[in-house]
Structure formats: C-alpha cells, structure tokens
C-alpha cells in the first residue's frame, strides 16, 4: 500500500481563509470622476464563455489524477457489472413491475398500468421511464427486463463515481477511495442486487449524492439545499431511504461551520421536507389521502406498509423469512457485510466517519427489528459498509505511521499490513472471483425469453393469461393488449394488493383465464400460507395442465393451459416438483415480494 500524500489529519479544525475585506481594494474613483460620469464605465472582464472554458480547464488540470483513477475504476465496474447482466440473476416479478410502471408512464401517461395504490412513491419508475424513453427500451428487440438492466448499469456507474467522491471528501487517499469503490463494485452480493431493477438502485445515486453534497468542502448554503433536494428524490424513489435522514442531518451538522450551521441544517431539512410533501399533496389532490369508499388511499397504504404487512421475523430465528433472506445475502458474499460490521465501531469512534457509521447502524438495527425486511434492503447498507472499510483502513494506516515513528512499533506496521494483505488474498479474492464468475457466466434469463416467444407464437391473442409481472410488458407489447388480457397474478389476491380493480373486473376469478405462465416467483408466492392468500391463483394452477416448460430445476417456467374440468389437476402439477423445493434464497423472492 503506497503512502498517499493527503493522509487524513484526524479532525483538524477547519480554518477560515483571511477575510476578504482586509485585502487592499482597488482605489475608489474621485468625486470629480463620479460626478462627471467617468467612473460609470463598467470594468471590462473576459466574456462568460471564455471564463467558463478557463475555469473548466483549470478544474480538469487540478483533478486530472483523480479523473484518471476514477475512469479506470469505472471501466472495471462497467465490465464486472455489464458482462452477463442480461443473463444473471433470475428475473423476478418486482423488476417486471417497475418496468411495467415505467411503460405505463411512457406509453399511457399514467403512473401504473393498474390503479396506483401508493405502494411506493413514483419517482423511481418515473426516472426509469425517462431512461426507457431515451434508450427505446420498449422497442421489442429484447425482454423489457433486460432493457431495464442496461439502464441499471448507468446507476451502478453513478454509484461508483459518487462513492469515490464521498471517499475523497472524507479526506481518504486515492488508494483508499479506490478500495471503497472496488469493495462495493466487486462484491458478488452488490453486483447481484445492483443488476436488478429495484427502486433501491434507482434511489441510491440520489442518496449518495445527498451525502456527497452534505460533505461540501466549501460549505456553501446552496450545496446543502441541493443535498436536501437529492435526498428528497431518493426518498420519493424508495421510501426506505428515509431511514438515513438522521445520518444525513448529522453529516450536515458536522460539516457545517459553527457560524452558519443553523442555516445549513435548515436548508437541508426544509428543502427535503417541502419536496417530499409533494407526495401527500399529490394524494390530496387526487382525493386519495384518507380512506374512503371506492378508492385507494395514501394513509391506508402507509398503514399497510408499516403494520398491516406480515413481518419477516427475527433474522436470528432459523425458521423466519428474514433468516433465509439474510443467509441468502451472506451466501452471495459474506465478506463485505461482515467487514462493514467489524469496521462499525471504528467508524463510530472516528469523527469524520461517524455519520456514515450512524447510517449503517440505523440500517442494521432495522434489519434486527424483526419487522418486514424487503429483499433489496441490503443495497442501502453496502455503500456505507464499503466506505467504512476504506475509512478504517485509512485510519489504521495513519495510526501505524504514527506508531512507526517509535522504533519499537516499527515492526508491527509491516506485520499488520502483510497480515491484512495475506488475509485478503487467501479468503476474499477466491471467494469473490468464484462469485463473480457465477454472476458473469450463468444464464437464468433464457427460459423466460423462450417461454415468452412460445406464448407469442402459440397462444391466441384473445386468450387471457395469468402471469408473473416479469413478462407483462413484453406480452402487452406483442399484441395481448386488450383490457385485462394479461394479468399480474397477485392482483387476484389480497396479499400486497390494496387495488381492487382486477378482482372487481374479473369476478369469475381463475375461470377468466385460459393460460397460466408459472414462474419461480409465482411458485414462491404460493408456498406455505401463500396459497391461502392467493386462492384464485392456486386454483388456476390446480385447474390447469402443463403444456410446455423451459429451463430446469427451481428456475423452470411452465406454460399451463387452464381446463374447466378438475380431474387431472393432481396428475403433474409443477408446484410439487419445483415450488416445493426450497428455492435458493439469494434469487427467489418472498410472497408477492413487492418491496
């Protein structure tokens, strides 16, 4: 590890530059000049375009090393994220949901294809719609989910760049800043989840930007206001980001100067609060703020998310959903989450790392709380873990340098560094290499594509299909576009669904459908108590026969034709063979997982 020049001097008081007023001024014009108008001529400066070019050149010159380092990092991030992103991981229904909602925004100018019931604030898929419009994602050339994943690559690159910026603003050396970026970008866990079209990914750059802006070295008031605005976008993209608000306010409080602190904190909080208030205002304007007969409402959606939703249990309880979810995360990569946890005490002790440590701590406490744990929740924790790992490394390096000045400790320095590097090589590198190989080489998407094309070629457009959200946009775009021609399966049930529109329109339940596209997500939803919560879906599966199947094992996709006779329901139903197996917690989703 090279000794970086700008090692952090811990908690150095921030000095103010000399007061501008003390500097000698240009001589003021004489009274004669004033009265005769000679003083009125404006001082001619270079034109704005010239000034901005000059400024940009100076900026690039000043940051050229960082720019070189960062662009090489981004190449690595792009390769690791991009190679195989259209094949791995398995598409889940959430990805299809958000693509469908982006499609609704772009094509139908509505927030959702069905009734918008305030499950999440809409800014996440509004962003997505902007990108799908720009990239022609719904041209039909690829699966909608694959097109969406290409957009997620941009978000992953933005995350990496912002992480680098944050690390530099923590006064970490370029080496340690690169460590933070690589830890986040190379962890198979992060790669797996960052590839998926989750709202958390759409919110993440905004959240990181809020922190980066809150660490402004110049401490300009508008920068803090911009930080609040970015955080508002993050929260309006994914409401769980609200958890990090105390950490952000703490970061602002810490970074702001004593004299302007109250105004800086007010800037962040008021801009954030007022922008977020637009969301309830939207509900109010649609007359959907409070429950009433015949319409959805924001307050019942919030009540549902906070208390109505069945909790996933305590992660330490081996039978809970949370346990399988957390072990699924750790199965993909134990190293980054554990290292983040180990570095947490250091982060809490070092002043400049403390706000980030607080952010991670809040997220961890929320995991342990035992409430509802969303599948992609880990995405919000990993960047803080990566920053804490790099910050701890940098702090240790500083301590070592300090101790190395006393000869007795000099040997220790080399020992610890060698040990750390050795541990890294022995444990982390092989684990990540194998994890990344899986991420880059496995194909879990092709069965979905094959099933889709089979349906498009064999099923009459007048037939009604019960499907997983993953394929919804593609089928609608390929001609199954009559009203309620393709239906998200969980819209038939009462789990995660406060929208009664489908049940009301399709009163006959499973008998309305001619085909069921049985996917891993659907099977997972029907496991255990799921069949009671989604009785019509279970019935549709029970009253259908497999026509053709794609893929193998837990990832099998089965096209089933619904039969009115109940006779052969028990002959060869796929749920027994596939859904019954405990699906790998890493990729599968929980019941109607609509995080």
């Amino acid at each position: 590890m090279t000794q970086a020049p700008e090692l952090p001097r811990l908690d150095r008081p921030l000095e103010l530059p000399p007061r501008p007023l003390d500097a000698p001024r240009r001589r003021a014009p004489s009274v004669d000049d004033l009265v005769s108008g000679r003083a009125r001529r404006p001082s001619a400066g270079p034109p704005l375009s010239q000034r901005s070019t000059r400024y940009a050149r100076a900026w690039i010159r000043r940051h050229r090393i960082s720019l070189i380092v960062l662009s090489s990092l981004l190449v690595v991030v792009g390769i690791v994220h991009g190679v195989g992103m259209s094949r791995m991981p398995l598409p889940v229904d959430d990805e299809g949901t958000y693509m469908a909602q982006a499609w609704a925004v772009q094509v139908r100018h509505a927030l959702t294809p069905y009734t918008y019931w305030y499950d999440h604030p809409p800014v996440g898929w509004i962003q997505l719609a902007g990108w799908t419009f720009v990239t022609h994602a719904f041209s039909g050339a690829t699966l909608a989910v694959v097109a969406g994943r290409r957009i997620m690559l941009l978000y992953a690159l933005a995350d990496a760049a912002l992480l680098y910026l944050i690390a530099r603003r923590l006064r970490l050396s370029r080496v340690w800043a690169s460590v933070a970026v690589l830890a986040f970008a190379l962890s198979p866990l992060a790669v797996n989840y960052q590839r998926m079209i989750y709202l958390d990914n759409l919110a993440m750059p905004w959240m990181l930007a809020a922190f980066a802006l809150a660490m402004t070295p110049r401490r300009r008031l508008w920068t803090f206001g911009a930080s609040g605005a970015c955080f508002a976008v993050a929260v309006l993209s994914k409401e769980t980001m609200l958890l990090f608000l105390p950490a952000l306010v703490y970061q602002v409080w810490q970074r702001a100067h004593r004299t302007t602190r109250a105004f800086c904190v007010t800037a962040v909080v008021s801009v954030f609060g007022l922008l977020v208030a637009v969301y309830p205002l939207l509900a109010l304007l649609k007359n959907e703020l409070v429950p009433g007969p015949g319409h959805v409402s924001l307050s019942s959606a919030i009540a549902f998310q906070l208390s109505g939703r069945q909790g996933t249990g305590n992660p330490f309880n081996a039978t809970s959903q949370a346990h399988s979810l957390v072990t699924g995360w750790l199965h993909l990569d134990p190293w980054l989450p554990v290292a983040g946890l180990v570095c947490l005490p250091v982060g809490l002790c070092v002043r400049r790392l403390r706000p980030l440590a607080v952010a991670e701590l809040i997220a961890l406490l929320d995991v342990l709380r035992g409430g509802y744990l969303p599948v992609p929740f880990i995405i919000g924790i990993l960047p803080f873990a990566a920053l804490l790992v790099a910050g701890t490394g940098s702090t240790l390096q500083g301590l070592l340098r300090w101790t190395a000045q006393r000869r007795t400790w000099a040997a220790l320095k080399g020992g610890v560094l060698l040990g750390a590097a050795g541990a890294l090589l022995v444990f982390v590198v092989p684990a990540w290499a194998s994890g990344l190989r899986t991420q880059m080489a496995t194909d879990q998407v092709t069965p979905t594509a094959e099933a889709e094309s089979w349906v498009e070629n064999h099923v009459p457009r007048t037939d009604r299909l019960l499907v997983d959200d993953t394929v919804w946009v593609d089928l609608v775009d390929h001609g199954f576009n009559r009203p309620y021609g393709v239906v998200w399966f969980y819209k038939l049930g009462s789990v995660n669904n406060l929208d009664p529109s489908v049940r009301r329109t399709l009163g006959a339940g499973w008998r309305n459908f001619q085909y069921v596209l049985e996917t891993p997500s659907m099977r997972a939803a029907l496991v255990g108590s799921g069949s009671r919560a989604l009785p019509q879906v279970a019935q549709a599966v029970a009253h259908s026969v497999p026509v053709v199947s794609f893929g193998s094992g837990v990832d099998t996709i089965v096209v089933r034709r619904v039969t009115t006779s109940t006779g052969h329901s028990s002959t060869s139903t796929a749920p027994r063979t596939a859904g019954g197996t405990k699906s790998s917690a890493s990729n599968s989703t929980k019941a109607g997982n609509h995080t």
Partner: protein
Amino acid sequence: MLVALALLVVSLCLFAVAMATLWWMLHAWRTPEVFRSLGFGQVVTGHAESPLSFSLIVPARHEEAVLGATLDQLADLDYSAFEVLAVVGHDDPGTKEVADAAARRHGGRIRVVVDHSWPKNKPSALNTALGDCRGDVVGVFDAEDEVHPRLLRQVAGAFDRSGAHVVQGGVQLVNFQSSWYSLRNCLEYFFWFRSRLHLHAERRFIPLGGNTVFVRTDLLLAVSGWDPMCLAEDCELGVRLSSLGARVDVAYEPMLATREETPGTLRGLLKQRTRWNQGFLQVLRKGEWRRLPTRGQRTLARYTLAMPFLQAFTGLVIPLSIYSMIALKIPVALALVSFLPVIPTLAALAFELVGLREFGRVFYMKPRAYDYVRLVLGLFPYQLFLAGAAVRAVVRELFGRRGWEKTAHTGAHRPAGVPATAPTRPAAPVGGPAPERQPEPTLTMAAPRR
C-alpha cells in the same frame, strides 16, 4: 385551457420571484467566509493624527418626546472630531426648545438649524443642514435612534479601510415582542441589514437606509444633496450614487447597530410602508437606475424597486391559486405546478425561525416559544398586510397624493432606566406592551428607513 396556461405562467413567475427573494435574504449565510467578512471587522488604529471629521444631522419634527435623549447620546459618542446638527422646523417651537436645551447642555458639540422650507419633509430638512456641515463626512440619524457610543470609530475605520464614498451602518428594530407585526418587522430589518444590503453593496447597486448612513460631504454637495420631491429620499440617494459608480461599504456589527422601534400601531406601519413603497415607485419612475453601467445591475435595480409589488402579488395569488385548484378542477399535474411558489415561501419561513433565534442571540434577547408560534401564524396576515400597503401606494401615486405620512415614535425600543432627559418621553421596557401612540401629525417627517 387559457386558465390553465395563465396559472402555469403565473406559478412559474412567482416561483422565480420567491426563489430570488429567498436566496438574497440568505446572502450573508452563503458560506462561513462570507458571513465573517460582513462586519466592521477590527478597528483600524493609527489614523489618530488626522481623523475623519463627522457632521451628524438629526432632523426632528414634533419629536420632543425622544429628541433630547438622542441628542445627549450623540453628543457623548466616543470620538474626537464630530458635530451634531439638530434640524427643526420653524413652525415647531416645542421640538426647537428641546434641541436648544440639549445644545446648551453640550456646549459646541450640538448646533440647532432651523428649517424654513415648505412643505416640510425629511429631505428638505437634510438639505438645509447640509449647507452648514463642516465635517468630512455627513451622517444621518433619526430623532428616536439609539446609537452605540463606539459607532463613529468603526465607521471611520470602514472609510479608511475600504476607501468607500458611502458607509451604511446597521439599523435594527428591537421591540420584537410588542406585537405580532413588530416581530415580523424586526426580522425584516434583521435580514435586510444583516444580509441583503451586503448583496447590494457587492453588486454596486444599493438603496441606502434612512439613517446611520454616512456620505462624504464633498460628494454629497457635488450631487446637490437629497431629492426633496421623493418620499424615499434615502433610497433615491443610494440609487443616484450607485448609478454614478460610487463605492458603498456596508458595515454591520450587531452590537453597533442603531436601534429603533416599529410603529406603535398597524395603521402606523401601514402608512410607513405605503410611503416606502410609493418612494420606491417614484425612484423606479425617475429612472436614474437606467444609467447603471451593467445590464445585471439594471435588472437588479428594476427588480428591487418593483419588489414591494411583486411581493404583494405573491401574497394575493397564493390563496387565489388554492381556490382555483379546488373550484376549477384543474389537472393534478398542473395543480402540483401551481403549488411551486409555496415551497420557497415556506422555506423562507423556516429560515425566519432560525433567523429569530440568531437575532435573539446577537442582540441578547431571548425569544420565547410564543414568539416562534407568532412568527409562523403571522406569515399569511403579514403577506396580506404587505399586499395592502403595496396596493395603497399604487393608488396614492396614481392620484398624485405625495404628502408625507409621518411615523410616530414612543421609545418602545429603549430599555427602561435610560436617564430620561426629555421629561415627556414615556419609558417602555423592551418586550412590554406598546405604549400609547402620540397623536399623529399630518405633515411631518423623519421615519426609520431601511
């Protein structure tokens, strides 16, 4: 459709106006460095061999209640070379008597100038005294001002250091607990002098304040003093000097700010605000600002002078847009856009709450929780009030009614226990109830100007 389009345009304009106002209000807190740079700074020593000399003009009209104490304070300022000129009207023997008594008490420090001009107003009185000024620098104070003893030393330092032609000191209303509107009025002064005025000095277009303003005598004589026809003579002078290219230094130090009181009644405040607005309108129409050298300055000038009206407009349109949203059933997206101006308005309220805390801290007066509540509740009524004053100013200007509506002063800003040289002055404690207002003369002058 037309309504929708109008609503969209108006909303976006109001949003821009409110954002600009908010941003300028917060000028001083942009960065810690800016905040630190905006003060008098250290006293410059070593100029004792040839100190700047000051002539301090105090115009007074029917202000026998407060003038005596003010003159005593001014005469006792901690500075070597200055004189005080009390200007009284020839038709106002009561005030003249108080001024004469003060002149006798302080020997040569105070001179009494009798103003024979007609009609009586503040700029005429100032012009009358200008001819008698012997100092290098002319300073203006109002009859009810509380002036800090060390002010002149700091101002002299500011002249020396900056080489400016004009130095504007701070003025602060302090009786923020007298009433709901005095609280808002005090904060307006606080944000104006602490923050906004510095922006104007930096951009070299500045509407000067009515007192604690210091101008080099030779310059003032060269531009023939104040405009006697203008209701906002201070603003007018500032605009005229700015357009000539004069350098203005704003020196603000809370401890040294001249303390004043808000008008005792809402009606008094309305008259005062109407007069300022009308004055701004006159300055806008007079068009001196068109000679400012850069386009940016001219835009700022036009915007600043028209501000009272934009502000009034904002106050009126917000309830109107809420009404139209409910009544007209406009699309949700448009309704959201029409709420845009509310965002900077409420953000400004949040900053006012912080400003009140800061105000209390620097002036050593602790606001109660009740004051914060009052600040929030007063937001909308005060907007309405400002709108009313703006409309009234436009109407008066249209009908050619340009008389001075004098603001009465009672001394609510003076702490109890200040030796009362003028026997008739009622001493009211800070934060106490507003004392009874003096009967309001119809044609007088001297009012706190920001």
